[in-house]
């Protein structure tokens, strides 16, 4: 297998074979790929739980200590809101970073060992294959989030949303955020078709994701100039928007510009990834033909 600029027949292009339905056993198997991989390496689950719990604990102590020294509200966030933001952002951000690539079903690893060719000869397009696998990964991450949320609320670390309206807008915002998450990860992964190895790109994207999404520090605490830019980047759509809606930092009545921006990023990134899939498939050449 090699990656070249040669033309490849339509039968090997991404997106040609038909879709799968929700009820298809194949779709189900693809969706459970990541959870099953995690289950196969159970120490991984224990390590993920350890990392998330200690990170949450550390951030809670940090914010409590910092708020203890200053006033009630900083950058529009009270202590309870900041802690809730931090806990949810850690659950959403750290968890995803850890499990990213857990299944090793990434273009990067497949290109390295040459098995990427199987993505393009299956009766399911590579694009849909990755989409179903990504959906499973997202649902698995959501299970971690919900478990952490339940424990956080029970322990008094996470405050409940200020209103039912906040819940109502947080749920679709979270869904859109997960879509943007998937698309960003996919675009980064697809760069392997051009760079062959994409460790550098992956790490860079992971740090950008963690920092600019609000996964490390609430974006509201950023210096004004940086925040003005960061809130309009796709990374902010993944964590900052849903968590800010949950905590009430963005009132439910004012959510529409933020949700609309999330939706816009979904469309833009989906179009971009579609184009990249097509071009990536054209770069694939197997045994010279």
């Amino acid at each position, binding site marked *: 297998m090699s990656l070249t600029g040669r033309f490849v027949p339509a039968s090997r292009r991404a997106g040609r074979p038909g879709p799968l339905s929700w009820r298809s056993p194949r779709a189900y198997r693809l969706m459970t790929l990541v959870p099953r991989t995690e289950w196969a390496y159970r120490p991984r689950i224990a390590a993920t739980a350890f990392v998330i719990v200690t990170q949450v604990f550390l951030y809670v102590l940090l914010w409590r200590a910092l708020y203890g020294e200053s006033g009630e509200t900083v950058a529009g966030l009270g202590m309870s809101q900041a802690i809730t933001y931090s806990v949810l952002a850690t659950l959403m951000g750290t968890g995803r970073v*850890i499990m990213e690539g857990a299944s090793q079903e990434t273009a990067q690893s497949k290109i390295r060992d040459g098995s990427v060719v199987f993505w393009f000869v299956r009766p399911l397009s590579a694009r849909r294959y990755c989409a179903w696998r990504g959906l499973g990964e997202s649902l698995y991450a959501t299970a971690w989030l919900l478990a952490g949320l339940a424990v956080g609320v029970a322990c008094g670390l996470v405050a409940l949303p200020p209103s039912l309206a906040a819940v109502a807008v947080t749920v679709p915002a979270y869904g859109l955020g997960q879509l943007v998450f998937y698309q960003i990860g996919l675009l980064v992964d697809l760069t392997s078709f051009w760079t062959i190895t994409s460790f550098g790109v992956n790490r860079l994207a992971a*740090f950008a994701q963690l920092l600019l999404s609000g996964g490390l520090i609430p974006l509201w*605490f950023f210096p004004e100039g940086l925040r003005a830019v960061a809130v309009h980047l796709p990374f902010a759509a993944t964590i900052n928007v849903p968590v800010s809606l949950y905590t009430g930092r963005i009132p439910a009545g004012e959510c529409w510009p933020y949700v609309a921006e999330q939706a816009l990023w979904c469309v833009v990134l989906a179009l971009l990834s579609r184009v990249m899939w097509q071009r990536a498939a054209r770069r694939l050449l197997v045994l010279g033909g």
Partner: protein
Amino acid sequence: MTTTDGTAAPARRVGRLRLAAVIVRAGLRSQLANRADFAMAVANGVTYQITVLLFATVIFSRFSSLGGWGLGEILLISSIRMLGHGLYMLFFGNLGLIPHLLREGRFEAFRTRPAPVLLQVFTYEAPINALGDLVVAGASLTVCLSLVDVTWSPAALCFLAVAVAAATVIELGLNLHIAGLVLRFRGSESLFFWLDNTAGNFGNYPLSVFPAVLQGAFTFGIPIAFAGYYPAAWLTGHAGTVPVSPVLVYLSPLVALLALLSGLAVWRRCLAWYSRNG
């Protein structure tokens, strides 16, 4: 190393260094083959350190009083830690690639070759992103030196150099523990991320801002406070305010040695277990 004629030991050491240099050169050439990824790797080091600095800046700008430490003094803590991290990445950063080496089966090859496994791990790939780490750490130290009111006597400069070396060794020791665990418990590689994240985000502040439980954890559990805070406390005249005892400000080299010995012991034990069961 004991030898029969008394001359073979130095020759062997030189041989290993030469071997390491040859492998690193080959790795560098291999990485230069993918120019875009090479550039990204350098940028990655810069981004990581900027992330750490930004975190510290945001915290400082929003919460101005951090245990009585000024911005320059806090920057000194993070500069020592970041320089230590940069040097760790330069010489030993490939430890974090062990999960990848295990998955691809390359680690098995390391065990069959007539060279130490750790040496082969350290030289597996040219540590490109360490360049970015060191550039930002150096820039941070330069800014910090212009902000802090410290008389840089030869003793202070030596203390700073020892502190940076200790920070490097502490990070190596802690990562050796995790590398051993990764050999013993497949799938536990997220602990590398955890250590990096914890040291990067919580190792840059005066311990006095944290509650007692974290002060104890960062001093006696995962001693990241010795990789920045304690030496910086001596350099900036805050030795009297450190938790537990002012003596701790001098103990970074000793803690580094203990962390390294403990890490090597865990690594050897887990490698032996892996050789039997891996």
